[in-house]
């Protein structure tokens, strides 16, 4: 794995030189990486703005009954859409600097920031729980399968991860609903069944979290298994066994620390994806989350909502990458950031 041999490629791209000393140097590195967000966001906003305005159709176009020309003119005036696009772009940049993300076109003048603050918590809750499941089960069964290679445990894990990795989330979701809601409801005469959808901090979370985590668990399990098998064959592991170390020590100290490096680099983007929401899981389980809000915003050309969601997603992806880079230094002391 290339990452184990030096600085991770993501760190190298930024070519910021920082001192070798760990404590203060790391702090400076983090600050610089966060400062880099500013130009990144500027480009993200610019590209999104251009693409958004290139897409045909206005926020006021509808499928059925059309708004009259007079009403469309009034709406454009109200939301500043009658100004030239460049003026709109400049105004937006100025507002963003003041953390003003504008008003939604779709939801009658509600601030986009409050719409996002409302729809992000359900997404983040389900995403975080799913992430925990992925870390625990994905890495767990991957390591177990590798340690028990070519036994029934291994075949079971490989079998599960093959099926899990090739079953789309909406199929998993619908099957879960059919079994644990509809069928259970019929069988128990309406006395017990899981809720089909919606969001609350109770049994509502079970099916969405499972659905969201099945595919990544399968993926992470396969990755962990493969990289653990590779590490198990290394000389230093053989030495550790030969020294007569206990299995627990060999696995945690020598095997896991090395085999997890590729897993960590896969978990970073996975985390970013989970936390920004899955449109499919949110639709199947009717979760009022940000993934669906973003898709609806795009299809209804709710420009301020599209921009604000894209900015949020960019920040999350950038921060997740930063965390991954920092984690490398913890897992592998050979990694130097800079």
């Amino acid at each position, binding site marked *: 794995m290339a990452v184990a041999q030096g600085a991770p490629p993501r760190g190298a791209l930024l070519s910021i030189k920082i001192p070798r000393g760990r404590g203060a140097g790391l702090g400076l590195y983090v600050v610089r990486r966060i400062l880099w967000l500013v130009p990144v966001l500027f480009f993200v906003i610019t590209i999104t703005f251009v693409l958004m305005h290139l897409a045909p159709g206005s926020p006021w*176009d509808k499928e059925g*009954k059309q708004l009259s020309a*007079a009403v469309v003119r009034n709406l454009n005036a109200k939301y500043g859409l009658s100004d030239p696009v460049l003026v709109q772009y400049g105004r937006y940049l100025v507002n963003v600097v003041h953390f003003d993300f504008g008003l939604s076109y779709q939801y*009658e003048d509600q601030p986009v920031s409050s719409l996002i603050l409302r*729809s992000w918590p359900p997404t983040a809750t389900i995403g975080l729980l799913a992430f925990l499941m992925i870390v625990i089960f994905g890495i767990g069964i991957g390591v177990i399968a590798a340690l028990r290679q070519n036994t029934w445990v291994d075949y079971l894990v490989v079998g599960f991860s093959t099926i899990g990795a090739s079953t789309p989330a909406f199929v998993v979701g*619908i099957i879960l609903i059919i079994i644990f809601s509809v069928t259970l409801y019929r069988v128990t005469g309406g006395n017990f069944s899981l809720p089909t959808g919606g969001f609350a901090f109770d049994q509502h979370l079970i099916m969405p979290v499972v659905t969201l985590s099945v595919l990544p668990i399968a993926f992470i399990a396969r990755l962990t298994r493969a990289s653990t098998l590779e590490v198990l064959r290394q000389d230093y592991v053989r030495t550790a066994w030969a020294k007569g170390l206990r299995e627990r020590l060999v696995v945690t100290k020598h095997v896991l620390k090395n085999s997890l490096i590729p897993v960590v680099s896969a978990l970073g983007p996975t985390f970013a994806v989970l936390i920004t929401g899955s449109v499919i899981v949110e639709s*199947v389980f009717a979760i009022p989350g940000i993934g669906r809000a973003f898709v609806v915003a795009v299809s209804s050309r709710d420009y301020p909502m599209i921009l604000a969601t894209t900015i949020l997603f960019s920040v999350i992806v950038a921060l997740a990458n930063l965390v991954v880079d920092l984690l490398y230094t913890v897992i592998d002391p050979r990694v130097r950031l800079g």
Partner: protein
Amino acid sequence: MDDSAARLRWLRVPALLTVVGLVVAACGTSAPTTSNLAKDQTLRVNINTEPNSLDPGQEQYSYEADAGASISEALLKIKPDLSDVVGATASSWNISSDGLTWTFHIRSNAKWNDGKPVTGADFVYAWQRVLDPRLAAPYADPFFDGTIAGAADYGNLDPTKDAAKIPDFIKGLGLSAPDASTFVVKLQAPAPYFKWIASLWMSAPVRKDVVDKFGSDKWATSPDSLITNGQFKVSEMVSKDHLTLVPNTFYWGGAPTLTKVIEYEIADDNQAYAKYLNGELDIDNVPLANTDLVKNDPVLSKQLKIVPQLTLFWMDFNTRKAPFNNPKARLAFSKAVDRDSMVKNVGRGRWSPAPFFIPKGMNGYRPDLGASQAFDPAAAKTMLTSAVGDPSKITIDFLIRNSTANKQLGEFLADQLQTNLGVKVNQVVIDSKTVTTRLRKHDYQLYVGGWGADYPDDQDWFDIWMTGSGNVFGGYSNPDYDALVKKADVEPDAKKRQDLYDQAQKILIDDAGGGFLYQRTYYQLVKPYLQGLTTTAEDFEVIGDWFWGKVSIAQH
């Protein structure tokens, strides 16, 4: 109910008889019995989408008007059979002999949900507000600016450039409240259909002090500031999840039996259907794909309610381009579609064939006028050949919105036209916004358009085919049609008016302004313990949503 509806579909009887039949067939109210009520009087339904606004002046979609009809009450309200209106916040009203002045008498016990009385001034304010171009109310044009005296200039007032003129424009509107219990509206011209406009969602009153305090675009976004005058009020708004309605204890008509209505905002049809099966919803739309399953299920088939809907679809021909600039070519296309097969195979028996314009459930329903568009493939091909020459040389660009339902219908129509006429049909499937953009630019030849009634008056339907209308994209124009409709719109005598509309419909069908296809129905499951459900052909998202006040829940 199902049987009589099915029988009626095949009858060719005079309009009046059919309307009477419909009342019996579709609008039956099961009699509530109070002795067997369940402890929990909560109704749970799905309105599909979060309302963008619950401000009566800003509502424009059926998923908004659904809750809107329960929480805000206009002057008048439709009768379930759609034959007329009855007093709502206004107990009575009179119309001057010239038909120009409408005086509404507001109930002395009509109250807002904070206990304050509803006054004529509340209506003056609400209607003036809708006509203020700075609010950009979606339907100020055409409902209000097309009828209210002094409002005709609405379209010429730019909200920024003409800002100085707006206060005078508002003052000059024909709206006044001589005293607290009277609201007077002066019209531009006699409009027999104005009673329906006075029953629309946007005609409900709005409180000036509330709007001033919380802000014009903020007051309707939180239950605390959403002061309304309907039988219910909003007690909870969970974004993209649900709305909760509870009774307005000050409502003039007394308390409903229901103590709570939960309106879910579930976009996915299958999720909502599973919720119904899981006992989490009391009424639910049947997903198209599950139609046969529900019909054949011994339990679900008994819970199925089918109600005709005032929504009709047609082939929208772009009359500016060949071959559709030729009325005979349009008529040939209209005659080339087997609507019975379409209803059976694409609509899974949920629609009814309609080679005519005015749907079942309206006064103007005249299926006999559809004779000229009746399916006749041989005659269609001959007609097309004599009108524009060899059909095999014609290629048609058919614009289709990208969704499963639209693609299935598009596939079927393209196949019919290719087989029966021998023309080439090029299906252009693209995203919805792009389709609308191209329609507005008239950059298409064929498209399936439709209309759903805003109110059950012929005027709402016939006006859309007038020259220059923004609601039919094809550019149909016929001066004879325009003249008849203009006359009918202001004709006070109901019989004479109907006669004029019938003549107009005949012209429209024979001209094939559109190739009329089918009428849609509501196809929804209702739990057997719901009592008093009162459906109309004008319901919004959920059948019975005009009349939640009549519903109760039996023990189950």
